[in-house]
């Protein structure tokens, strides 16, 4: 077992909060935990551009805000473009001496819909242009803000309100879009996956992404009890199960080099992860086996890349 124990050492985190309590997230929302941890990682010298979605709605009902750092919401599909503008605005103003020169981190943040679907073009443009910013995708695997509709990041077999399981359908019939691979294909310096069930790992990756010059992409699996039909108290456990079953591997791609953050020679059975979620309740053992086969294959491919270092 090559498990990295410091991924559990939560007490190493700062006590300071940059995302205040009193927000309107659902009970057991792991996405809001991911955002809170990311905010801790980033500190105060940061500007956040946030796509329309759960995190925007729960944190900014006028005239209230949960944000103790500068925060900007413009629209759904353009967050990476807005962050591009923030980054270049700061750069030019510093160059011209109109604001003092110092490192200010620009963050773009969106859900899986705002990233993998409607915001993909703007994200691709911003990554290609090479802006010095970090994009954080908090992936809860469907359009949860509008009521659990499928996205291209919804896993195969999951029942959502627009990919419902029925007599003639088995839920989502397409495989989860591989966003980290798409980000990595832009040859950006840093791509990582993370999950708030591993808080130190998440914080370290967000810090690394923010420190690296150029575009960085962090994809965070965010358990959504409301959308996944799971018990709110199981969110941390579900995040761990997603990693330990190989459903959501934790890894980094640093300047093209793959590295597994946690490697499991033997993965836990996917059924342990599925059985805690109502969205997979309709799947038969055969279906689960088929899904497991494909996910294991993908996991092995990832391990191979990490072994070869490419």
């Amino acid at each position, binding site marked *: 077992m090559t498990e990295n124990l410091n991924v559990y050492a939560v007490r190493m985190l700062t006590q300071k909060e940059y995302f205040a309590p009193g927000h309107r997230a659902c009970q057991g929302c792991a996405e809001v935990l991911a955002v809170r941890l990311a905010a801790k990682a980033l500190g105060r010298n940061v500007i956040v551009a946030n796509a329309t979605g759960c995190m925007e709605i729960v944190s900014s009902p006028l005239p209230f805000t949960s944000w103790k750092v500068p925060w900007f919401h413009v629209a759904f599909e353009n967050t990476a473009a*807005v962050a591009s*503008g923030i980054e*270049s605005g700061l750069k030019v103003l510093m160059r011209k001496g109109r604001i003092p020169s110092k490192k200010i981190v620009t963050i773009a943040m969106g859900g899986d819909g705002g990233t993998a679907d409607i915001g993909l073009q703007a994200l691709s443009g911003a990554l290609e242009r090479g802006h010095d910013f970090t994009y954080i995708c908090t992936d809860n695997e469907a359009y949860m803000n509008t009521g659990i509709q499928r996205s291209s990041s919804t896993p195969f077999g999951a029942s959502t309100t627009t990919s419902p399981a029925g007599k003639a359908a088995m839920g989502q019939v397409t495989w989860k879009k591989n966003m980290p691979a798409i980000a990595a294909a832009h040859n950006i310096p840093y791509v990582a996956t993370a999950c708030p069930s591993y808080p130190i790992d998440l914080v370290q990756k967000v810090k690394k992404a923010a420190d690296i010059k150029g575009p960085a992409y962090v994809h965070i699996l965010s358990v959504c009890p409301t959308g996944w039909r799971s018990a709110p108290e199981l969110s941390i456990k579900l995040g761990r199960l997603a990693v330990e079953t190989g459903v959501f591997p934790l890894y980094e791609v640093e300047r093209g080099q793959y590295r597994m953050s946690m490697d499991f020679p033997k993965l836990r059975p996917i059924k342990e992860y599925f059985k805690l979620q109502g969205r997979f309740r309709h799947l038969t053992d055969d279906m689960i086996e088929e899904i497991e086969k494909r996910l294991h294959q993908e996991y092995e491919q990832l391990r191979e890349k990490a072994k070869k270092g490419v």
Partner: protein
Amino acid sequence: MGKRVGMEVSIAAAEAVKQANVDVISAYPITPQTHIVEHLSDLVANGEMDADFFCVESEHSALSVCVGSEATGARSFTCTSSQGLALMSEITYIASGLRLPIVMILANRTLSAPLSIWNDHSDVMSIRDCGWIQFFVENGQEVYDHVFISYRLAEDRKVLLPVIINMDGFTLSHVIEPFEMIEQEKIDQFLPPYQPLYRLHPDHPITMGAFALPSIFAETKKAQEVVIRSSMPKISEVWKAFGDMTGRYYNPIETYKAEDAETLLVTMGSLGETASVAVDRMREEGRSVGLVKIRLWRPFPFEDFKQVALKAKDLVVIDRAISVGMGGPVASELKAALYGYDSRPSVYNFVAGISGRDVAPSDFIKMVDKAEIEIEEGNKEGYELYGVRE
């Protein structure tokens, strides 16, 4: 007096953006706006302009980048046409709601379908209500001048609204005209660096773009309405200051031989210059015809317009866009402006010159002839699409 030069209007527009010391430019190329972005790219690439230029992947992102950069306090510029404006239209409403003083030049072009690259005003009419201050210019000098005027106005703390400068695609964008360039020192004095009231910066963290529940939304919209309506004196003030500097004075409603005219032609944009030739010809024939040119489209200058229009017997309003199923958008607004006055003029509406079809002085004369006959026969509120082959 500034240097006099001959130059393509798009090049002069880009030169104005340079002279205005814009910090961030973000655009996506689209005909007929391309020459502006090409020249701006040259200026930045040659080190003649200290700005960041981004040729982004869509117009939606072009304006979104400007929204981001303007929010940090960087003077930002974009320009587009037609489909490009349609694609960025979502963000036009947001930019004004967020009170970001971005300036956009719109090289007006037809909206598809059928696809057409030529000029009319259907693009801007699609975002008529987006909350930006909107100018229409008649010639190249006015485009150049209005870049400075727009930034000074937009960035005024009592205004803080984005501005669109509408210039007719090809008819203006691609022609070479004489210009009087303004000396840089004068511009620097007229347009000092932008000092935002609020900016995104960690030293003073603020939340921008929060969502509003019904209990507060109407109040935010009221604030926006009050601001754009009360920007009118500020617009006059900036025009006056600009006129004092250059000798070129502008008004929300421009008139030509309109004082005693029974019939008034009403135009917006570059058609005004052609129409004035037609007015001269009709005046030579002893006809009582004048011209009204709308320069300020938003906020709509009701008072200035009424002062001129109520003296006339007939208005012949030339629209360069169709609200399909209703007629010309300008005419319908003018009718609304005059409603409630017992002695109001008849408003006869022509939609002409759509998709860049030429409108010659003789066409204006034909339209006035037709309108006068129709009104005489009792058709006081007529509308037609002019010059269509049946």
